[in-house]
């Protein structure tokens, strides 16, 4: 696909999404769309460390929790306006990511995944036990909402943020930094051998990924109005990983598609009652086995095949 066509597809997608509040008469779907857009932000961040750098991080939901709690608590204790606390949440998350990223990135592969998994567990344990601050497992209710809780307005806020952060992820991926991240994924030793300090780039990807998650967490908290530690457990981190794999790892469109899938699919399967989770699991297993390159990868391969056929038939 040439660049103009790609931009056109993105613009059409954005315009279609922007029309959703007018088109959707049943607001439940708007509710899910807002959650999906929050997950787009989360998945784009996850894609930077997982898809581009090749490091599978299992702490995404933990960072989402840090963002959610920091925005909520800054609002409660310092009476800051909600928009300001949402803006500060990724910065607070970045501090935690710097502290955890440095030791985590000293190891590679499965070891990195396990270390980040442990960090996610630690974050949840702290959220549960530091009751004086977080109210423990009971959670925090009545978190202030923007615009009196208007879902339409919030949808546009999240849509614009998701679009901007997707654009930012694309810019990073196309920049020299993005190329180095890809090179690290392909052969980290080779990157080191030509004098590039790979750890700096890995830390950059890890921290930026955490900032995306922190912002997603803050947006989640002020949308739902309630948070407790359970929401930010390892299961949610795995959902972020799945969103990237399902959509297409190392692509910009992949996390967008994957995020909508992980939010909408379990809801669409509600008709199956208690078999819902079995069905959901089965779909995920089959998709991972038969579409390891994700939906975007499959579509790209199909387009390539079609264009080759066209060239042959023209000849």
């Amino acid at each position: 696909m040439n660049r103009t066509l790609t931009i056109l597809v993105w613009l059409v997608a954005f315009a279609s999404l922007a029309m959703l509040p007018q088109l959707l008469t049943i607001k439940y779907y708007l509710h899910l769309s807002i959650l999906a857009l929050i997950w787009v932000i989360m998945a784009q961040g996850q894609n930077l460390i997982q898809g581009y750098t090749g490091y599978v991080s299992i702490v995404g939901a933990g960072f989402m929790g840090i963002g959610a709690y920091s925005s909520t608590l800054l609002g409660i204790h310092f009476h800051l306006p909600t928009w300001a606390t949402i803006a500060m949440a990724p910065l607070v998350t970045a501090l935690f990511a710097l502290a955890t990223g440095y030791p985590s990135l000293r190891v590679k592969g499965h070891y990195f995944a396990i270390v980040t998994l442990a960090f996610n567990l630690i974050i949840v344990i702290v959220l549960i036990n530091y009751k004086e601050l977080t109210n423990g497992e009971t959670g925090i209710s009545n978190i202030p909402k923007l615009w009196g809780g208007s879902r339409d307005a919030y949808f546009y806020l999240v849509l614009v943020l998701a679009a901007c952060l997707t654009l930012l992820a694309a810019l990073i991926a196309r920049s020299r930094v993005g190329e180095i991240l890809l090179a690290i994924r392909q052969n980290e030793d080779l990157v080191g051998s030509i004098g590039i300090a790979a750890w700096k780039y890995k830390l950059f990807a890890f921290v930026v990924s955490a900032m995306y998650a922190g912002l997603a967490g803050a947006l989640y908290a002020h949308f739902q109005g309630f948070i407790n530690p359970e929401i930010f457990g390892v299961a949610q981190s795995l959902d972020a990983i799945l969103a990237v794999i399902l959509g297409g790892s190392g692509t910009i469109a992949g996390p967008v598609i994957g995020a909508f899938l992980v939010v909408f699919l379990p809801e669409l399967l509600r008709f199956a009652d208690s078999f819902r989770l079995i069905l959901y699991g089965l779909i995920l297993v089959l998709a991972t086995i038969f579409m390891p390159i994700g939906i975007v990868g499959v579509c790209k391969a199909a387009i390539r095949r079609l264009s080759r056929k066209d060239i042959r038939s023209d000849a």
Partner: protein
Amino acid sequence: MFNRVKTGALAALAMALATTSAFAAEKKLTIGVADALTGGGAVYGLPQANAVRMAADEINAAGGIKVGSDTYKIDVIAYDDKANPTEATNAVRKLIDRDGVKYILGFCCSGSTSAVASFIGNEKAVMLVGNAAERSITTKKIPNLVRTRPPADFTGQAAGTFIARKGQKRIAVIGALDVGFYAQYVDSVERELKKVGSEIIAREVFTLRDRDMTPQLTKIRALNPDAILVVGYVESAAFVYRQAVELGMNIPRYGFTSGSEEQFLRVTTSAQMEGVWDLRPTELDLLSASKNGIAYHANYTKRYNATPSPSSPYAYDQLYVLKAAIEVAGTVDDTVAVARAIRALAIPPQVVMQYLPVDGKMFDVNGQAYTTNGAFQWQKGKWVFVEDLPSDAKAYSQFLSTLN
């Protein structure tokens, strides 16, 4: 000839009108249930959903809900919330936004219930909470929310008095203390123990998914306590009781679980359970049950081929409360009027649990109902109701009103 045609036409018209008015009078009222139908919370959520379905069928068979000249037959839609806050929010949004439901029942678990409670005040809907025991659910003064189960610390206070009376001085606690309402229960117990010079010497924690509690029990055994107190979901608690016996801990075992015999016997044996106390709201138990309770037990067992969990009538009662309130309010559309009618309601005669009225009403100003508390003991394969635990609903209600 003309007269015969005219008579025939009039008869047909009359029949058509009669049929139309019959159709107009019988309407459908869709009730939503949001509960844990899968996962760890399903031991409470699934029986609650079953109980609502059973109550709906009973009400329909008895003629439905009468509102003026209309009769409403109840239709139940149940969605799984996996006891997860996000899932619960999605399920309730679906019920309200897509299915047009105004009355939502169920809610067995505290985290998911708190998530829904945080926005239900802005909705034209009424939320009836069942087994979720977290105290803060009814401290927010949400006008369209009521709860049939008393908060955990209301029961904890009565349980503490009971344990103190038994004379044990050093109690070790093992439980899901990360969960707010279990911690509140233990805090209340501790306050009562302190009054008689007894104390809690250990607070060992397990998570709701843990199955091997021998490390915590070994540590407790080394402290040589006079008794243990177990607080947690049925399955986890059953493992604790079993493993305590396997470790040779021959001391009194108290608990706060609300599990049925069938649920416990999936994990442990009757011999390992012998003598265990469950200090909980006087929920469904054949020895303590009213006529309604006995009938409920029999009907549920027949219908689902399983015995009901002791806490399942909280949800069953919700539907009878709703029926009574709608009939008093004379409307199904005005949720504000129905919510107000619920708060003013005396205890309906069909309910199963033994509620303690506050100022003659089933729910206090906080929207909270109270049941009596009881001491149950496992004797020869069954929970046996031993005695009532003195509980002052009015005093607790006043205390609850001071919180926010």
